[in-house]
């Protein structure tokens, strides 16, 4: 089985987001980059499938050279090889086109990625890739088992979950608890240095969206504290002042 895992390099979840250049660029000063947390789940499940039943795991990112530490970490966790499409992942359609182009050349059985990247939260790339390849996409997948040519999955829906079956190939957007995050061990880190990382140029330049500028949310006003022994006052305030109940 051939598995492609697509990952993003994103600011750590604890990052305080700010912008520079008149609110047109993310302020990268002091920002720690990590593998997208959802992508990490996808990778962990791919590596588990490889350990259980033998599969090749290729990791792919669309990103500039500063995304390479994230790729090396994926190799250290257990991916066999890596591809970096050397481009700014600015638009979901553009990113999907890069992934679809590589998938068409390599005939993967499974294409896994996070349900969404935690920077733009679009949650679109898996669906667009699947549409370009003419195969099903399922997201967010919380459980995945493969037997033969069939995938059995559990997907989260509003207020619950559903079990699904489909034939490979598939594109899946993953989330917890599909697998436990894996932490690279020393041997993994050492071997990752020599695993192949291929850098390719993007296919086409077409984007369908473009960010003009950014904005931070307006700060909330000062918190109004209510003594615990007058907790009932809160309900009155929510009704008469905030007018939400």
């Amino acid at each position, binding site marked *: 089985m051939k598995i492609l895992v697509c990952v993003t390099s994103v600011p750590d979840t604890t990052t305080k987001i700010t912008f520079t250049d008149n609110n047109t660029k993310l302020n990268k000063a002091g920002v720690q980059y990590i593998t997208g947390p959802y992508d990490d789940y996808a990778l962990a499940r791919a590596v588990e499938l490889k350990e259980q039943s033998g599969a090749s795991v290729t990791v792919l990112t669309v990103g500039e050279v500063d995304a390479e530490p994230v790729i090396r970490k994926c190799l250290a966790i257990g991916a066999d090889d890596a591809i970096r499409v050397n481009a700014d992942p600015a638009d979901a359609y553009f990113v999907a086109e890069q992934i679809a182009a590589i998938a068409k050349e390599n005939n993967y059985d499974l294409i896994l990625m996070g349900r969404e990247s935690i920077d733009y939260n679009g949650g679109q790339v898996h669906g*667009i890739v699947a549409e370009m390849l003419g195969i*099903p996409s399922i997201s967010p997948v919380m459980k995945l088992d493969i037997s033969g040519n069939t995938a059995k999955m559990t997907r989260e829906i509003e207020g619950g979950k559903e079990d699904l079956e489909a034939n490979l190939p598939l594109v899946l957007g993953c989330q917890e608890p599909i697998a436990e995050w894996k932490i690279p061990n020393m041997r993994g880190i050492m071997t990752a240095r020599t695993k192949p990382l291929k850098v390719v140029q993007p296919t086409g330049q077409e984007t369908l969206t473009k960010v003009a500028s950014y904005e931070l949310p307006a700060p909330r006003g000062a918190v109004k504290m209510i003594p615990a022994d007058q907790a009932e006052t809160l309900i009155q305030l929510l009704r008469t002042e905030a007018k939400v109940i």
Partner: protein
Amino acid sequence: MSVLVFVELDEGKIKKSSQEAIFYGAKVAEMMGTSATAVVVGGADQGELATAGNFGATKVLHAADSKLNEPNGMAYASVVAAAAQQEGAKVVVLAKSSLADAMAARLAGKLKAGLAANVIDLPELSSGFRVKRSIYTGKAFAFTDLTADTKILAIKKNTIEVAETGGSASVEAFSPALNDGDFGLKVTNTEKATGDVLLPEADLVVSAGRGLKGPENWGIVEDLARALGAATACSKPVSDLDWRPHHEHVGQTGIKVSPNLYIAAGISGAIQHLAGVNSSKVLVVINKDPEAPFFKSADYGIVGDVFEVLPRLTKAVQAL
């Protein structure tokens, strides 16, 4: 040229989030000098469909093929794409949901459309087509130009305040050719909480964290939620510990909510949790630790024991 709005039904009624999408679509149509057409896929009562007019749609296309009775993101996306072609629609609006999320991306692929997710305001049309969308899990906004000919907007809850128009829409049967390839997924089992308020749709949310000390103590959270007609939610540690199901987990890696009221009990307010809730209109924090960081982001705060405060709040709501 019309603006197309995908409309979802829940238990036979147009979902609240879809009412908002119709109203939003009608506003966009007005700005563009055209009208809004709703698309409904699957079995539905014709009278209920006509009520789409009350939110601003002039026409409803109803694809009622029995093969479409079960929600199917791929097949539904094909139907909406066919509707967009028939109507010559250059703008498609959906309210975010698990079904709409599955559809929006496939639609973008089919129509080669620029897609903006988590849109939180009406577009700005003075220089092209610019939308404001929430990014970094609610920590920031991006003003994004949709440069493709066709645009898809997935709007977040509470993006626009709905004003009912009193109108009624004409309902037309819509029967595009269905594509066998769209029916390759087999749903073998569905588990869904019934009777409860669904978290992503809820106007009011009562959420609790590790401060509740154990799943056996959730009764006081559920009591307040029931009294308010609110949905229940939880923090990531609570879901990780299996005290509550994952579909209640709110935060950066869980569900992002934007209700009118979010009450957080026994949640300290890690930045990742805050990210999932900070677009709520009013935030209430109840915590015994006065230093809990969540208080800094709250509108109202109570420093106190959740085991005493929550039951008092429930009683106060019941007395209203």
